[in-house]
């Protein structure tokens, strides 16, 4: 075996051109005289050429970004300090521009796929918040504000003389609807911020009434109050058995209920009338500090409870006579 090793090594040196002088002459002489040795030399030359071709193809595959089987992995282990794999550094030659781009330009790194997924989810959540909640919510609020500020009384009702209510004493027709802010006009928003729009009661008209007030005269201090005594300050004007006292101003609003409510709501100086049109002739009168509404010849007692109440027709004949007497 030792001789075989030496013989092959000698042939290697000959093929590399490393032999010279006497050694080279002896080698050539042996080739000429020993055909088997000459054949061995040629065989070795052919095999070496094949080894070179394999190595060359391997290196070319590296340059082309192809991983030759087995070799690269071992090289990577041998050179532990190397950071990048050859495949990462050298793609195909024709993709040269991409190589330069990889070196000098920053590009998103999608190797960390979970970060990309998290970013997409976050963006989706943000879009949902903006377009699915915030903007619709804002639109709804804007719509509600608009409905409040633009809820104007119908102009024909507010300006035509026929539409003026039949009031007892010179109603001062002041349209203050634009400056009023009534809780009834606020929308009934569904909780949770959804986009359901609730229709509101609609205020048709409002005005200020100076309501006359009367007081029943008690027998004490006056033997007969059947006659009217006009004079004095006016605050104690006597009409039959009644006397006129200082009235008050009442703000009257005409509302259209979306649920068909028929009734009223009376607080101290504010009266809201439902299911009653501004053009209908109504009048108001205080009798013994009780407010009465007259409509179509009928009187209705209005309780200042501050709650929604239905119209209650007054059937007391004596009371009606007293109301009718002035």
């Amino acid at each position, binding site marked *: 075996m030792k001789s075989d090793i030496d013989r092959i090594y000698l042939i290697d040196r000959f093929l590399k051109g490393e032999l010279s002088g006497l050694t080279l002459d002896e080698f050539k002489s042996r080739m000429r005289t020993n055909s088997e040795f000459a054949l061995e030399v*040629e065989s070795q030359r*052919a095999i070496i050429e094949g*080894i*070179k*071709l394999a190595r060359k193809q391997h290196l070319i595959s*590296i340059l082309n970004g192809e991983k030759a089987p*087995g070799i690269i992995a071992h090289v990577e282990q041998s050179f532990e*300090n190397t950071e990048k794999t050859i495949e990462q550094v050298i793609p195909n030659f*024709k993709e040269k521009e991409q190589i330069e781009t990889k070196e000098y330009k920053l590009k998103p790194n999608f190797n960390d796929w979970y970060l990309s997924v998290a970013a997409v989810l976050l963006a989706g959540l943000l879009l949902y918040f903006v377009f699915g909640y915030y903007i619709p919510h804002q639109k709804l609020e804007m719509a509600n504000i608009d409905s409040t500020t633009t809820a104007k009384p119908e102009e024909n009702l507010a300006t035509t003389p026929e539409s003026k209510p039949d009031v007892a004493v010179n109603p001062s027709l002041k349209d203050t609807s634009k400056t009023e802010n009534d809780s009834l006009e606020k929308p009934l928003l569904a909780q949770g911020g959804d986009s359901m729009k609730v229709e509101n009661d609609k205020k048709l008209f409002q005005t200020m009434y100076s309501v006359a007030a009367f007081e029943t005269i008690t027998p004490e201090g006056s033997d007969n109050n059947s006659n009217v005594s006009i004079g004095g300050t006016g605050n104690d004007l006597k009409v039959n058995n009644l006397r006129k006292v200082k009235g008050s101003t009442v703000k009257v609003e005409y509302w259209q209920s979306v649920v068909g409510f028929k009734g009223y709501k009376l607080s101290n100086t504010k009266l809201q009338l439902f299911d009653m049109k501004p053009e209908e002739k109504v009048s108001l009168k205080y009798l013994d500090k009780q407010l009465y509404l007259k409509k179509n010849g009928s009187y209705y007692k209005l309780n200042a409870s501050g709650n929604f109440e239905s119209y209650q027709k007054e059937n007391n004949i004596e009371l009606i006579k007293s109301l009718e007497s002035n």
Partner: protein
Amino acid sequence: MFGIGFNSDNDIVNEIKRGNEKALVTLYKQNLNAIKKFVLNNSGTIDEAQDVMQETLIAVWQNVAKPEFLLNVKLSTYVFSIAKNQWYKQLKKKTRFKVVDVAMTENIRADEAPMLMYDTKIVSDYVNKLDETCRRLLMYFYFDGLDMNTIAEQMGFANSDTVKSKKYQCFKKLETSIKEHFGKDDFI
């Protein structure tokens, strides 16, 4: 040194002498633009530039790996000079440029290439079928031209004698498989 790449020509040369194929990659990156531009500006195509680039780097690899190699100029200058020679050779092979240099053309003789006993491609296929150690050892020795000591250091053998013995075993294994493939009568 490798952690931050090959910063100097000496680094690259040393790594090539060690058989580190990643030095080849660095050479590719450093010289790609210049060689490509040169070939394209001299009637070449992108494919031809690729061929020149490959042949150039293979030649540089083999030359630098030789123990006697000494770099006297910038490595890029050396690479570019080889690339120019490679391209001029290819130009002369192209029919439309065959009367570029009559003197040099006359020197090229078809019978210069020796007739080989075996088909080189088939031999290379058998080389690739060898185990990794044998394949690398034979490539380092016959193509890269690494000496026994360098191979021993690179591949983790005890010494050069071990490499020499192992190299013999690998070579005989390859030779046996090739002869089995061709048979004695199939020699070219």
